[in-house]
């Protein structure tokens, strides 16, 4: 009996000092298995995302949408799905897409959306007529302020160096007020907040945004007066994709990045929460055993 108890105790102790690689395996599985299975999680679209979707859905044909890619590779996993979903939706609505970046790192990511989504899925979209990549310009919020007054002074060429006046779809763009919608992807600085403060508010142009889950709480207060809607983290992306599939059933069988990332994210959080609970249960078992054996709580 006593022997048995000692063995039990040592098992608890062993589990408490569990090799961390076991935890690593669990976390890796929590992420990889949903990705491999291709599991998706339908996120019921919340009002803040639905409002965004409805706004795009109601844009007339040939509306001018400015998309600013204001993020870098480290937040791309969360934000790229949003950019992809919104580009898809705008292209379905036959909007004209103007892509730019106030982050230097945004330029390459703009390219990814064009190469992975726009070109293969919408082969009819012609560069210079239906979409244009203006590239990155330095200047942070100062740039936004200037664009509000004079767009072409800052962008005299597109990203490839083509003169802006030779691009047909740039003809009537004089300042930010000529756009029907501005979407900023990225919650850092400069980002959605700066677009709201220096373009949306003074120019009275509708602004929508997509940002990481971490920065979303700071931006919620701008909805609905200053932001038409906001996508926060993988969840926001998944909600938008859900709305997109509901309205355009042809996407039902398409792999939606946000919806599949959402599964991995939720499961991996569960794993971490599980381990915290597990660790504490073990700890209390261990301590009550020690108390029963008359040993004072060893660790402090």
């Amino acid at each position, binding site marked *: 009996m006593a022997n048995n108890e000692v063995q039990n105790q040592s098992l608890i102790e062993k589990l408490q000092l569990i090799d961390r690689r076991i935890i690593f395996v669990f976390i890796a599985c929590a992420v990889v298995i949903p*990705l491999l299975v291709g599991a998706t999680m339908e996120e019921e679209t919340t009002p803040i995302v639905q409002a965004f979707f409805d706004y795009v859905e109601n844009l007339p044909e040939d509306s001018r949408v400015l998309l600013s890619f204001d993020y870098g590779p480290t*937040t791309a996993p969360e934000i790229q799905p949003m950019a992809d979903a919104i580009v898809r939706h705008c292209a379905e609505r036959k909007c004209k897409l103007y892509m730019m970046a106030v982050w230097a790192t945004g330029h390459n990511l703009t390219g990814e959306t064009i190469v992975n989504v726009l070109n293969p899925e919408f082969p009819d979209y012609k560069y210079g007529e239906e979409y244009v990549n203006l590239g990155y310009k330095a200047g942070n919020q100062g740039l936004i302020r200037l664009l509000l007054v004079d767009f072409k002074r800052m962008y005299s060429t597109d990203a490839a160096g083509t003169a802006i006046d030779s691009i047909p779809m740039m003809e009537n763009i004089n300042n930010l007020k000529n756009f029907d919608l501005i979407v900023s992807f990225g919650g850092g600085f400069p980002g959605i907040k700066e677009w709201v403060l220096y373009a949306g508010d003074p120019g009275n142009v509708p602004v929508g945004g997509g940002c990481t889950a*971490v920065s979303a709480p700071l931006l919620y207060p701008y909805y609905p007066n200053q932001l038409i809607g906001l996508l926060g*983290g993988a969840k926001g992306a998944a909600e938008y994709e859900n709305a997109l599939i509901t309205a355009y059933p042809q996407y039902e069988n398409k792999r939606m990045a946000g919806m599949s990332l959402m599964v991995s994210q939720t499961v991996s959080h569960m794993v971490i929460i599980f381990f915290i609970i597990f660790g504490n249960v073990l700890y209390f078992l261990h301590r009550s055993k020690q108390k029963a054996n008359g040993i004072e709580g060893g660790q402090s």
Partner: protein
Amino acid sequence: MNFDIGIWIAAFLTLGIMSFLYKDNPWYKISEAIFIGLSAGYWFVSLFWQNLVSKLWDNLWPALDALFTRGEFTGGLLYLIAGILGLMMLMRLVPQIGWISRWPLALVVGATAGLQFINYLVSNGVIQVYNTITPLFGPVSEAGGIAPVTDVWHGLGNALILVGTFTGLVYFFFSKEHKGFFGGAARVGTWFLMITFGASFGYTVMSRMSLLIGRLDFLVNTWITGIFT
């Protein structure tokens, strides 16, 4: 570079770094070695073009040109001082006069102390005091420029912020022993610090996960899927 080769290289290096989680191994070592060499080179190239060329040379050259061709003294000549300070750093390579490198170091440390003195005083000190000053309860007219206390909970929240900031500062006192009432207050202060640490930890977990998901998504859906299609 061929795009597919790029994917294979990226996958190889990604797995190499991840293999460290199991244990140190040659695959990790080679990824690490590439990373160190490449990134050190990358930084030097960035410093070279952004600092040496566009900050020093592009400012200094026109000034020197003006000085020697027209005999004009222009503000750009001040960059000469920066260049000289930089060269002084290199004097370390000559042991006899290595001590000269302390001059630019002294400048750097002194300037850092001076600049950060003010930065921290304002943004970390004074403004945080400003933000903490609010009414604890009762309506405040709009003139205050502070959000009026709307209900008991809001007021309690404000009071809690006051208590937390106050006791937190008590904890940091160096010249008083944490005993008696003072010790009690310091203890409460540590509780608030613990909440802060717990909250930031919990808050960050989510964003860290999405980074990993991004990487593994690349492996699963770009690389592996790419092999079979």
